[in-house]
């Protein structure tokens, strides 16, 4: 029984493919329209995702801990130990006040002024890299560290992080909104395509009903039609995004070459690409399903 059921589905699948290939222009047109509609949110998604990668992987948030002036070497070792054991902290680097002064001398435009200072005004410091980048956790960590007796001051630039986070959030919202709009466009295109299909297959539907076809049997070819076109639209969208990223990267390489920066955009991952295909297939199917249930009952023998 399952074998027959599978054979039936295979038959419908093959005959649907044949039908799509038999009308290549019509098929291509609607698939390309749906593919373009899908490629817009996917492109923005890829750009936002790249932004997130740049932020997270390459730039973990950093904090600077300034120590008290009269601190002893053993206290410094103790702090280093504590920092290493802290689960939130990925790494720490000690900058002794002498080295800090040295760096200041090298960078300063007024080296003599600095040199003439009666004593080194700079404190010892640790620069730490933090695992978590949520603002609340960073604030909490800042408070904890501030309460350590040897630490005078904890500095980190929260505004910068917050701004970037807000930018990312905006990016995601835009992606979601355009996904919603594109989905509606795809469902609408599919709805109309299936409506026309049903009109041309009126006789077949009527006769099939007369000789005992169930509704699922009549629906099946249209659902396959919708799903297959949705899948093809997903492939087109993937292709468009791939080409787009490729072209941008070519330009980026030329541009960033002057700054000696080695950076390029990551294309859509295979995993996300497959999700895209799945999503577009479901959209095509859904458009077909809505159209069929809307139009089929009108054909009663």
């Amino acid at each position, binding site marked *: *029984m399952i*074998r*027959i*059921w599978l*054979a*039936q589905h295979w*038959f419908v699948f093959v005959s649907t493919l044949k039908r799509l290939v038999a009308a290549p222009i019509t098929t291509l047109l609607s698939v390309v329209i749906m593919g373009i509609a899908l490629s817009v949110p996917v492109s923005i998604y890829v750009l936002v995702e790249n932004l997130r990668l740049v932020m997270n992987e390459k730039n973990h948030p950093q904090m600077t801990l300034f120590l008290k002036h009269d601190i002893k070497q053993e206290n410094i070792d103790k702090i280093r130990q504590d920092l290493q054991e802290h689960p939130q902290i990925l790494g720490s680097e000690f900058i002794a006040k002498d080295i800090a002064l040295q760096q200041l001398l090298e960078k300063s435009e007024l080296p003599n002024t600095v040199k003439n200072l009666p004593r080194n005004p700079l404190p010892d410091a640790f620069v730490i890299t933090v695992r978590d980048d949520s603002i609340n956790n960073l604030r909490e960590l800042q408070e904890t560290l501030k309460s350590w007796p040897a630490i005078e001051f904890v500095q980190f630039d929260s505004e910068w992080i917050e701004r970037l986070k807000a930018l990312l959030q905006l990016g995601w919202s835009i992606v979601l909104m355009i996904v919603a709009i594109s989905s509606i466009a795809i469902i609408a295109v599919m709805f109309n395509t299936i409506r026309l299909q049903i009109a041309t297959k009126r*006789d*077949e539907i*009527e*006769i*099939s*009903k*007369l*000789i*005992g*076809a*169930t*509704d699922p*049997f009549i629906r099946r070819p249209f659902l396959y039609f919708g799903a297959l076109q949705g899948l093809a639209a997903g492939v087109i969208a993937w292709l468009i995004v791939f080409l787009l990223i490729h072209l941008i990267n070519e330009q980026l390489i030329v541009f960033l070459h002057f700054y000696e920066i080695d950076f390029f955009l990551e294309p859509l991952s295979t995993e996300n690409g497959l999700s895209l295909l799945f999503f577009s297939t479901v959209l095509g199917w859904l458009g077909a399903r809505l159209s069929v249930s809307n139009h089929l009952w009108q054909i009663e*023998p």
Partner: protein
Amino acid sequence: MITFKNVSKRYPNGYIALNNINLSINAGEMVFLTGHSGAGKSTLLKSIAAIERPTSGTITISGQNIAQLKPSAIPFLRRTIGIVFQDHKLLFDRNVFDNVLLPLQISNFDTHTAASRVRAALDKVGLLKKEKAMPITLSGGERQRLCIARAVVHRPTLLIADEPTGNLDIAYGRDIMSMFTSFNQVGVTVIISTHDASLLGNTQHRVLSLAQGNLLV
């Protein structure tokens, strides 16, 4: 097998197609339904296959009340019936073989069994050599036979034919009639409507006459 009890059909425009019909047809019987066009023959046949629903009364087939059948159960009723339509209802986008295949596809037959059944049905009506032909190239008589092949390919227990000899010349009509007789001889219940009384000749089968929606006894 089939029982009509006080069956009436009134169309929304007030036209009464069937008026209080009572009849019963036994399993394995062959019955003719005669009357002028508009007498209600088609409506009566269609109501057996639940294509038309009676306004009142009950129709039972093998103990099942057709008038109260759920819409989802109707396809399964129709699969037990073979129908030869007055206007053939062939599909012109596929060849003879695929037209006959359709009922088997609908009833989930496997491809191999289906193919041999289609050929057997085409052989019975003498169209085996034309299985690749498109319906548009067939003559009126051939189309009628194609329609019969499609009606019997799934081996129904009940065969309904609405004016099967409608536009055919007498020789062709006799041919078709003898086909129905042979189906009846292997146990199929057959109901045939015709307005052409000459076709009946001196038949020994039961003849039901309809006039303006009433059954004449």
